[in-house]
């Protein structure tokens, strides 16, 4: 079983995956934090993202929904921020990243999704006051290992 202990190797492995693989592993990252998002659209979106046989049309629709959810969940400029809700925003962003085609963003979809999922956890840690630094990344390393070995 390939094990990861640092982000350099983790990211290299993610970037080496093809478009579909990146989407699938990104969807798993999002599933790991999906409880942090109260918007039910994300569950539907991730179902499409995790489906290796999803059609082009399904993926495009899912991406649209993910984007809409991201906007709806964001804290608008000047309004009072709620970090628990922001966690939901980051989950939606991760879902958006998972579904964005390769090459559209400067960093790969899977890496971007992973980062957004970590930010979702950070948001929750701001609310709880706990220091959860590093926990989500460890879980992501495990998820990627399992994905590569399956």
């Amino acid at each position: 079983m390939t094990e990861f202990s640092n982000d350099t190797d983790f990211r290299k492995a993610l970037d080496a995956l093809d478009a579909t693989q990146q989407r699938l592993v990104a969807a798993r990252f999002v599933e790991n934090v999906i409880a942090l998002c109260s918007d039910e659209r994300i569950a539907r979106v991730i179902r499409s993202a995790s489906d290796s046989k999803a059609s082009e049309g399904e993926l495009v629709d899912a991406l649209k929904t993910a984007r809409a959810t991201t906007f709806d969940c964001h804290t608008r400029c000047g309004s009072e921020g709620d970090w628990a809700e922001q966690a939901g925003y980051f989950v939606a962003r991760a879902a958006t990243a998972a579904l964005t085609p390769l090459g559209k963003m400067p960093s790969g979809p899977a890496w971007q999704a992973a980062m957004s999922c970590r930010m979702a956890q950070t948001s929750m840690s701001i609310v709880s006051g706990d220091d959860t630094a590093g926990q989500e990344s460890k879980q992501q390393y495990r998820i990627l290992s399992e994905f590569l070995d399956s």
Partner: protein
Amino acid sequence: MSATLERGIHAFKEVIDAPVASFFSSCVRCGLCAHACLFYTETEEPKYTPIYKLEPLRRVWREEYSFWGRLTKALGLSKPVTDDMLTEWETLVYDSCTMCGRCSMVCPVGNDIAYMVRKMREGMAASGHAPAGLIGATQRAVTIGSPMGVKLPALQAQIRHTEQDIGLPIPVDEVGAEYLLLLSSMEIMNFPEFIGAIAKIFNQAGVSWTISSEAFEATNSGIQIGVSDIAAELVERIVSAAEKLKVKSVISPECGHAYMAIRWEGPNLIGRPYSFKVVHILELLDDLREQGRLKTTGKETQRLTYHDPCQISRRGGVVKQPRNLLNMLAEDFVEMPESGTMNWCCGAGGGVSSNERADELRLKVFNRKKQQLDAIHPDAIISACSNCRIHLEDGLEEYGMDMPVLSLTETIAEHLAGSEQPGSKE
């Protein structure tokens, strides 16, 4: 006259200076300003004509500072400004104007209408006619230090996790650093990866920098609502921190009005010049590029276009720097049909995005940006303002357009040469 109306009229009188008087004296009602304003072009509602948004201010100018106006007022023949009028004008001044300044570029007689809208907001706010969203944001900015309620522990958590992710330290409260980085609450809450991007770039380029725990907020709500006293207080906090940390320069991040506030209005609000310089992050990045300290690798191959944030470009003067940086980064960069200082506003700045009442209008006028994009068919948009970014995303989604909106700073960070992550701490 009610007490609040009196405060408003007094504020109007205070802000009228020679330029304002000259502008009102020169207006010939040609209507050209309407054709430069996306709130008019996309709705065709004449009330959104820029100069019309200033009607209450014009009346006060006429009655107080012009011979004929004073005469007609004395004879009881003038039409005074009333509370009802200000209520009616609230949506014109706050919902349908971002102070983007495009009108100021086309007026044949040279009126700087955006300059006057900024001043008019002083009277609107003083008379209690500002939108609820902005009032809340300003209160939070004063009491908490951030219009979105971001407190230091939250920023510290973001910083800790960023350090963890990128394997680089993020300096806080370092005395003697060359640069003090400000952050907008929008970035801290919605785009915290900006912090990591900066850290990576500065690490490669050997920039000495720090964040201040006492003054990290770049956004100036006072400017948006139009209360100069509050705007001044927010600037003073940054000035104190900059002086305490003995920095040479303060960096304004990817936020439009923050740059206007700290770079151009700041010293005038506090009544004295700064003892430090102020640069926009794009200015610094371009300087680093010119000095050969910014090394990037690979290029973006997708078709990119640049959205000029109005306060940075047209009103701020940072126009060629993003283009220099994009030429370094992009294989296929295409300008919008009207670009640079004549680019069109995203429709959400200057407090419009903080104002729920303006949502429908804001989305409607995004059609102007859509038309610009339809003419060039980019794959993605790059910009340098968090507020523009989120609202470009919203507008694109509303109009069924499929393209990501990227941050210029973050894109540079992704292309840094030798940017393999150093081993992150466990």
